């Protein structure tokens, strides 16, 4: 049995607690939170040992691993303290807000051969993993465009009372919603080499962004767009959707459903004939040992345990999560810097209007636009 503790008992920490507590290979030793109220109730009714100071807990308890689910701003400090004590660490997303610090923690964990995982749970959703497999099989050919969208109802009023509405605490749609979409793009098509045209816009919030748009450039002429908005209550809960276009077809995928359009079928993928094929979560999802709120939340915890048991590398780790923070960080930099937009003014009609034969080739137009807005290059050196 691996001895586990949880630090931070908000929505995510409590949800982890309910799964950790019943995992057959984990023994929940203690929990830690700054709210004495929540701790008192848990201690009275679930008899779990509680702490208000994580340093005291780490010093006092014999542990194998910790789950960190505090507000984002505290992740780095707590993770560093846990690594210092040679504990395997599962940290909630978005991991360290500063990608430089994140990569440093990744170095430490890797050097110490400690399992390090971050709660980007979409990497454990069956439809997205099937998409990854199909992309690796090159089913839809060379990708040329991807679109990642995430919408949901988090902020629907100007005032919020928690850290999620404060920029200094790592609040805002960028590190909450966008990071999921960025992480999925990184997972499925690789990290972009540049971002441009990023917009961080407020819909309701005073201090943070509520909707984010950006253009990504990947290698080999692949471009992507990202659109995320956490002020959209037309969605019952967060919804993440990816659309990918390749030289041999396209894929639309969300948590429930995978729609694949294939131009020329490939013999090794017999299940995907010409035209549309639809696969559903019901047939793709593997069973989990315990279900609270979606198989992926259970699966990621079990994956963490199995990585500890086998010395494996987590599917979503400190390094991949730092890549995600890096892209988010560059998007913010891109949005902050002043640039000269290409103005759209009235154009005098030319003879033979509608005939585009004399216009510039589309590709050079795109390139010149990109040059004019100045793509923010991504380097992590």
């Amino acid at each position, binding site marked *: 049995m691996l001895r586990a503790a949880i630090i931070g*008992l*908000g*929505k995510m920490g*409590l*949800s982890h*607690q*309910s*799964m950790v*507590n*019943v995992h057959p290979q984990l023994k929940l030793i203690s929990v830690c939170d700054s*709210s004495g*109220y*929540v701790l*008192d*109730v*848990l201690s*009275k*009714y*679930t*008899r*779990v040992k509680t702490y208000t100071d994580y340093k005291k807990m780490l010093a006092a308890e014999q542990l194998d691993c910790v789950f960190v689910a505090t507000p984002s701003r505290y992740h780095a400090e707590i993770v560093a303290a846990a690594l210092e004590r040679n504990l395997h660490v599962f940290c909630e997303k978005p991991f360290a807000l500063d990608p430089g610090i994140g990569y440093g923690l990744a170095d430490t964990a890797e050097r110490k051969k400690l399992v390090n995982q971050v709660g980007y749970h979409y990497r454990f959703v069956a439809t997205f993993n099937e998409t990854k497999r199909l992309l690796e099989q090159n089913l839809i050919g060379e990708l040329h465009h991807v679109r990642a969208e995430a919408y949901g*109802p*988090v*902020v629907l*009023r100007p005032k*919020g*009372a*928690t850290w*999620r*509405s404060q920029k200094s605490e790592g609040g805002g749609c960028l590190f909450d919603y966008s990071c999921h979409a960025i992480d999925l793009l990184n997972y499925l098509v690789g990290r972009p080499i540049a971002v441009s045209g990023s917009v961080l816009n407020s819909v309701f919030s005073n201090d943070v962004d509520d909707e984010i748009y950006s253009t990504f450039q990947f290698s080999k002429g692949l471009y992507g767009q990202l659109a995320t908005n956490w002020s959209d209550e037309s969605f*019952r*809960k967060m*919804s993440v*959707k990816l659309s990918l276009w390749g030289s041999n077809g396209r894929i639309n995928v*969300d*948590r*429930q*459903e995978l729609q694949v359009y294939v131009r020329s079928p490939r013999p090794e993928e017999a299940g995907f004939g010409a035209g549309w094929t639809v696969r*559903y*979560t*019901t*047939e793709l*999802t593997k*069973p*989990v*040992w*315990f*279900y*609270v*709120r979606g*198989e992926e939340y259970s699966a990621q915890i079990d994956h963490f345990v199995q990585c500890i048991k086998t010395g494996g590398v987590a599917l979503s780790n400190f390094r991949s999560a730092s890549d995600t923070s890096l892209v988010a960080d560059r998007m913010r930099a891109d949005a902050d810097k002043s640039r000269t937009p290409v103005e759209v003014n009235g154009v005098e009609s030319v003879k033979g209007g509608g005939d585009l034969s004399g216009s510039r080739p589309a590709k050079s137009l795109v390139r010149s636009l990109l040059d004019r807005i100045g793509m923010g290059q991504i380097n992590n050196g």
Partner: protein
Amino acid sequence: MDRVLFGDNQFFGVNHMSEEKARAQSMRFQDIAAVIEVLEDAYAEGIRTFMCTTHERIAEVCDHFRRHAEKYPGFKFYPCLPYAHKYANAAAELGVLGAVRSFLPQENALGALLKGGMSLARKDVEGLAGLLIDAEMKMFAGVETPIIFLQNVATDFLLGLGFDDAFKIFNDHVRERYAAEPGFITMNAPFLLEKLEKMGLKNPIICANVNKIAFRMCGGLEAYEAMIVQNRCRLIAMSVFASGALPPQEALDYVCKFPQIKAIVFGASSRRNIAHTKHLIERRTLSGSPVAAEPTPRQ
């Protein structure tokens, strides 16, 4: 308990297979009149029980059935609470305690607030849970609610935490305050049943997925089948079509193989599908299954 119960996922944009379908449904049922029309169809087909969440729009449905009670003799509601997304969204916005506070009753202020405030201060979970249940049950005043369910997110969250007393608290409050029976919705039925029995809640009402592909049946098919044949709980089967992954006849052949299952809950949006599904269930129930293939109506 009736053999066939009518569910409400289709009315509130819940579809475990397709977001597009879910959106189309939430558009169609935007006007509560469309919901009531389908419920009237279900009533006309002989269905008498509506198992529903405590989504705020259900209040309008309750209003209708209260106002026109004489038109629907025998019609009853099985409320399933809490409406979890409301709490999850509020917890993200207000924090865990803030969310709890925001759902305590506002009106009839003095008594309720005092009691709520005192419950909060004394960490009196029984008192607090009672107030939250009462707040959700308000919309059902004056309609029949013989069984009140704890939603699966809440049941399974508490089950995982080991907050076993919560089931007893729910049981006691529902019985004392509403003279109703408690029910528990879960995705982990064999595990839950064990816990409930340990708490002294014998032969409980449990609503869980039952389908032959074991979709969201934690513990596995074998454990579920063993639990069913032991007949230690009054089981209501849900998600029998595994969100549409199974053809209706095949799905019902499997579920109706177990005479121990007390009821089947399903959702549908047209009278034709309601009638067809109800007929399929009843034919299997009366004749013993499996029965010969029947034509499926076009969707």
